[in-house]
């Protein structure tokens, strides 16, 4: 194929960095001249250039538009990413989050002037408590990992309050990395529990590791293999039996949201990923929100702030003294991810109790359909049924010369974002697929056809094509080794870079 002069290829346009398009003195914003005043900077006026490029508005708009065209997004492609719940992000949520009465309000306005905002937080909290059946909630965590941290903090505070020193937290080997990281951040040591051949937590192994020094167990349910922990009541009983707490990682809540009462599973604390189960956009890596529901035993230790409602209206509790409880402190600035709450509440209201029930139903149905249709072509790691995600491993690629990674890159050329790869760690070369309920049967059938075709090609020994994939993307495979061995983490002006050599 002939190379173009520009390096662009039709709709795939080569675009440099903003720093390389600098026009001295230019700005894309019109600003009035500042009034002449005697400054009060104490002699600390910034001297010298900051180094930011000057650009006009058309240049900036073109630059970021072109960048966007190099991305996949849920709006354009199917993203069967396990444990991420890449469901449709409704635009109504975006519209409502931008209402001036919800977006142009300051966290420290007098509370009488933001009663609607406080009521919104309270309403969102009410929906989440009612859905899970749990009596209390901390709204401030900024993401799932932050919610885990919040829950473990409450657990640690509860034991401290009783004068009990417990140092260990049990975590299944299939757990997401944030689980042990969050436990370590609370000063706990992490003890791993193996999985059974059926992909669930090994109850016997769990019981063997229990002791009076165990503070909690962290269990994802459904688990990261996409399976419901069928011995969950026994797990809860076992940890409660030694006076410990049951932390449930709610990343997979989409499988059960309208159909299971979390409180009845023996859960003491669970974080909910609003950017997963409740449709708020992933935004290329955030922002999310991780509100955390708590049992009555742990509720007193929930971090500040809280929103309360009495006959005088809605009020923020921002200080321990006014809380009447023993909050573990504050883990986030201001009042939580309010913009994310607005989007989540709009979604919850749109779906309603009946819609949310149908959503978990369809999510599980779609995943089982993939499992049934692909079980023969790929190697399913466990017998079905699965919940909202289906786990395969790389046994079907044995002796083909094609790895899970290569298979995923070939899927990109087919116009799909690959499934989650190499997670969970309990199987080799994992391929974890979560379709969600917002995919049609047609989309699934097309995906199935592509996957079957690729599997056949791989087993036929045509590894070269896989190794070269993807070929239809703005960039081919990138050298991650080079990036890690010689890190270049920012643009540097050429003169400076040259001097540094």
């Amino acid at each position, binding site marked *: 194929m002939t190379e173009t002069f520009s390096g662009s290829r039709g709709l795939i346009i080569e675009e440099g960095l903003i720093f390389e398009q600098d026009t001295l003195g230019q700005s894309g914003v019109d600003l009035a001249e500042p009034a002449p005043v005697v400054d009060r900077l104490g002699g600390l006026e910034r001297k010298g250039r900051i180094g930011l490029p000057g650009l006009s508005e058309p240049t900036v708009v073109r630059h970021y538009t072109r960048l966007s065209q190099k991305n996949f997004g849920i709006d354009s492609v199917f993203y069967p990413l396990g444990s991420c719940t890449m469901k449709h992000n409704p635009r109504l949520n975006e519209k409502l989050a931008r209402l001036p009465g919800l977006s142009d309000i300051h966290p420290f306005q007098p509370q009488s002037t933001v009663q609607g905002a406080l009521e919104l937080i309270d309403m969102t909290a009410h929906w989440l408590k009612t859905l899970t059946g749990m009596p209390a909630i901390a709204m401030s965590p900024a993401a799932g990992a932050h919610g885990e941290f919040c829950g473990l903090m409450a657990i640690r505070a509860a034991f401290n309050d009783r004068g009990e020193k417990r140092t260990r937290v049990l975590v299944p080997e299939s757990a997401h990395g944030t689980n042990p*990281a969050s*436990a370590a*951040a609370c000063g706990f040591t992490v003890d791993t529990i193996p999985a059974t051949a059926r992909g669930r937590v090994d109850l016997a192994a769990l019981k063997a590791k229990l002791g009076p020094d165990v503070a909690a167990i962290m269990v994802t349910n459904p688990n990261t293999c996409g399976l419901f922990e069928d011995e969950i009541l026994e797990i809860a009983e076992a940890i409660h039996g030694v006076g410990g707490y049951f932390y449930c990682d709610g990343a997979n809540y989409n499988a059960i949201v*309208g159909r299971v009462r979390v409180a009845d599973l023996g859960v003491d604390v669970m974080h909910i990923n609003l950017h997963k189960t409740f449709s708020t956009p992933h*935004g290329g890596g955030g922002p999310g929100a991780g509100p955390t529901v708590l049992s009555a035993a742990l509720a007193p230790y929930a971090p500040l702030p809280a929103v309360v409602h009495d006959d005088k209206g809605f009020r923020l509790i921002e200080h321990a003294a006014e809380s009447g409880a023993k909050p573990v402190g504050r883990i986030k600035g201001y009042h939580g991810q309010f913009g994310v709450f607005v989007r989540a509440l709009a979604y919850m209201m749109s779906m309603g109790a009946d819609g949310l*029930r149908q959503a978990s139903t369809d999510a599980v149905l779609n995943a089982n359909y993939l499992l049934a249709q692909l079980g023969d072509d790929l190697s399913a790691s466990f017998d079905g049924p699965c919940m909202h995600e289906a786990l395969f491993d790389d046994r079907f690629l044995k002796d083909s010369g094609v790895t899970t990674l290569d298979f995923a890159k070939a899927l990109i050329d087919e116009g799909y974002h690959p499934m989650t790869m190499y997670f969970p760690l309990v199987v080799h070369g994992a391929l974890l697929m979560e379709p969600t309920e917002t995919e049609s049967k047609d989309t699934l059938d097309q995906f199935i056809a592509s996957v079957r075709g690729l599997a056949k090609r791989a087993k036929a020994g045509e590894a070269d094509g896989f190794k070269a994939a993807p070929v239809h993307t703005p960039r081919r495979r990138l050298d991650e080794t080079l990036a890690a061995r010689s890190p270049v983490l920012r643009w540097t002006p050429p003169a400076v870079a040259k001097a540094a050599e």
Partner: protein
Amino acid sequence: MRYLPLTDADRRTMLDAIGASSVDDLFRDVPVAARRDAPVDLPHHASEMEVERRLTALAQKNLSAGCAPFFIGAGAYRHHVPAAVDALIQRGEFLTSYTPYQAEVSQGTLQYLFEFQTQVALITGMDVANASMYDAATATAEAASMACRVTKRKKIILSGDLHPHYRSVTASTLQFTDLEVEALDPDPIGIEDMLGRIDSQTACVVVQNPSFFGRVNDLRALAAACHDEGALLVVVVAEPVSLGLVTSPGEMGADIVVAEGQSIGNGLNFGGPGLGLFSTKDKYVRQMPGRLIGQTVDSEGRRGWVLTLSTREQHIRREKATSNICTNSGLCALAFTIHLSLLGEEGLRKLARINHANAVILAEKLASVKGVKLLSQTFFNEFAVQLPKPAAEVVEALAAKRILGGVPVSRFYPNYPELADVLLLTATETNSEGDIDALVAALKEVL
């Protein structure tokens, strides 16, 4: 329901393919006691129109900042965000994309984050920055923790001039580690003796510039004192627009700089989501938490970007990770990057000048109000004043006149009676001369 594409016919066909007689079959592992047989006791599904009606009703119960003279800051600042920012961040390829783990189909996200990292390093005067944290408060806690890893010491000293939320989040976050957090009393007029407290056990000193009470400080002597004892200086910037006019923390000798990025590109949104900025020196990069984007080439030799140095992070290091952070604040970082790209060098400098000028004019006009005493001898766009009566009462009285006249410090420090009369006031480019005159007139009435 408009977000659910499956039809009943689809469901039946799929159940047949699965070999299940009903969907309930697929939920057979759920303990009977925990099953819900019917939808939860909450409203049923609603149309767009209906949801819009209900949330608009809630919105109308709030007095939005644009509807009244507005002078509130305290870590969240109201600036004009150009229309192009919101239009661009709503593009589906940005809004609905995932974390850029598959680099070949995420070059858009990876490139803008690389530009973001560069911009953050430039404005803070540091070598390298990460791809964002949740907010300044959590970033402060992470910075303190990082300083302890770097120095292998355990003592953290928090200045009394830090935003109270940054202080309490740092103290709360680290309370169950073996690190020691010493938080000095709130320091409105800048008399705390930080220099005398640094010793060979100190991992870091954390200060804010401009401070929570508005003051702009020269941190060079403090930086030198820290380095003499082998400690690190962590500087927090609540208002990044100030970096267009005030000497950067990097130039003053900071080792780690964190900031709240909200005021550039992102609206107030009742305080969330925020945008944590985090930058440091090259030599500390491996101890830096959060995601990092690195430049590389693809198999055809063309420049591109990838997530790198991931081995510091939770998905690999697990309990030995530098932080547990996973999802951060990507879209807010994009809004920041686009706004800062539009402003550019000249725009940011001019915007900062306008902010400072408006704050100076506000301070000068307040001098004519009997009983109001300016406490901040230096400031950028926010300062503290002492009133002749409790500031909380005054703010409520102003609100009754539909003026959002600042934040009483007692909201953050209810147990410090000496701070009950202190009010924080902010003026940005969004304040007109009319706003300022209205505030001054109202104060004369209520005081």
